[in-house]
């Protein structure tokens, strides 16, 4: 027939063996983009290494690495505490606690992070310092001199920008992590709390021994991802002139006008850290899931 004649190219293909099928499936699933990322990283590393100017930029910028890491780590640890407390507050029976927690979360969520960082560092911290001063004067009047003295002497100028940056990041991320913890707690079957309480545990004992251990385990991957986000968002503290890698890169670019060197190197440093951390989170997550079975 004419039809068949006109399509000689369609020949019966050999039946797909299970082995080839599996191979095709694997090729299909393989994360090719990872190879691209690794290639980019390698090429950039080579460029940095071979080029005098890139190497100089790299050396200059890397000096900010410890500030970036310290800021991120400290702020994240504080945010974990704020988040856990706020997350529990969000679902508590206590009207006051629940509303304060919700107010905090909603306020933070409705303001851009850059604005929050300015606000907390330059308005929030001075306000708190002032409040502590007044509290110190009040204690002084009551005669608690030893407790009052450090509070009275506290000065807004005395709070370094690094500390303000950490406070700003922690307060901002505390609200995000609160939602993570809240979801984690709410994902635990109601029967768990009921079983614990039927045994005579108090609400807090049930939280501590039954609910939180399960909830926290469930949210570990989410927390890992938020840590990666925070590492990236820590670049925002450069607006406070904190000398993290972003700020140092900006200084370098400003002095030398070598923009490609400064910002390509900066990007690659962030990318290496976030990729590495993301992979770590994935590995931990997979290990946790295989442990489940």
């Amino acid at each position, binding site marked *: 027939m004419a039809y068949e004649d006109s399509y000689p190219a369609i020949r019966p293909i050999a039946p797909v063996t299970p082995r080839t099928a599996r191979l095709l499936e694997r090729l299909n699933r393989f994360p090719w983009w990872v190879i691209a990322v690794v290639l980019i990283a390698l090429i950039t590393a080579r460029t940095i290494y071979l080029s005098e100017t890139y190497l100089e930029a790299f050396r200059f910028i890397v000096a900010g690495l410890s500030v970036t890491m310290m800021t991120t780590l400290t702020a994240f640890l504080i945010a974990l505490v704020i988040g856990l407390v706020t997350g529990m507050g969000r679902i508590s029976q206590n009207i006051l606690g629940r509303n304060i927690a919700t107010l905090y979360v909603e306020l933070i969520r409705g303001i851009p992070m850059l604005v929050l960082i300015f606000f907390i560092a330059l308005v929030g911290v001075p306000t708190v310092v002032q409040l502590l001063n007044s509290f110190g004067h009040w204690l002084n009047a009551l005669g608690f001199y030893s407790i009052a003295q450090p509070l009275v002497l506290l000065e807004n100028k005395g709070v370094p920008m690094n500390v303000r940056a950490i406070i700003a990041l922690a307060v901002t991320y505390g609200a995000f992590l609160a939602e993570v913890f809240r979801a984690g707690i709410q994902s635990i079957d109601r029967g768990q709390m009921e079983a614990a*309480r039927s*045994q*005579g545990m108090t609400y807090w004992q049930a939280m501590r021994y039954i609910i939180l251990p399960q909830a926290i385990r469930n949210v570990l991957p989410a927390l890992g991802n938020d840590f990666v986000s925070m590492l990236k968002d820590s670049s925002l503290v450069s607006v406070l002139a904190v000398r993290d890698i972003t700020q140092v890169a900006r200084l370098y670019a400003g002095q030398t006008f070598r923009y490609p060197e400064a910002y390509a190197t900066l990007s690659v440093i962030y990318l290496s850290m976030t990729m590495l951390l993301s992979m770590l989170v994935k590995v931990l997550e997979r290990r946790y899931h295989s442990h489940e079975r």
Partner: protein
Amino acid sequence: MNDDGEMIVMRNVWKEFGTLQALRGVSLTVRQGTVLVIIGPSGSGKSTLLRCINRLEAPTHGEVWVDGQPVVADERKLPPLRAEIGMVFQHFNLYPHLSVLQNVTLAQQIVRKRSRQEAERIALEQLERVGIGDKAYNYPRQLSGGQQQRVAIARALAMNPKIMLFDEPTSALDPEMIKEVLDVMLMLAREGTTMVVVTHEMNFARAAADEVIFMDEGQIIEQGPPEQIFSSPRHERTQKFLSQIMV
């Protein structure tokens, strides 16, 4: 215990969820060492009644007394009272992050303030009693449904409760596992444990119950010894319900 041997007394208990009336004036008495079986259609308020006894649910109205003590709203008085009332749930509600042994020891340690050694000794004793002493170091997810429910029973027993409450303990189980759980419950009944059991296992009720209550729409419709309820129910609703579940 109070003089009359009354372990549980409910007087005119009402429970409303919004506009829904789950319990409408329930009164009952459970004497020490007796077994009360509660039957009734789904949604008739059986679970709510059980949960009002240890105040997992707060009655809207009425009084509950356990072992001569009023079960009141005071949050500080509730934990010690609840520790005296073991509860076994339809879906076991074991603590999945803890081993079987830890499931049974945890509340002993933090509520009963027993030392770890003592709690573990008692836990192993109770696990042995329900026939799964060899699973102490496994995790709940490694056990069959029947075994998990027996762990849940051991967990409740380890607190040395004065009363055991069972809320449809076998209805989430595969048929072949129902007997192993009922056998444990029967053993407890024969040993004189005060029990309130919501179940549709008629053979268990016949063998173990001192009294059977039939509930419908939040009220006790009929109550009496098992032979009477099952063989010659007086109320039409009881007859209809029994004919439905006997088929």
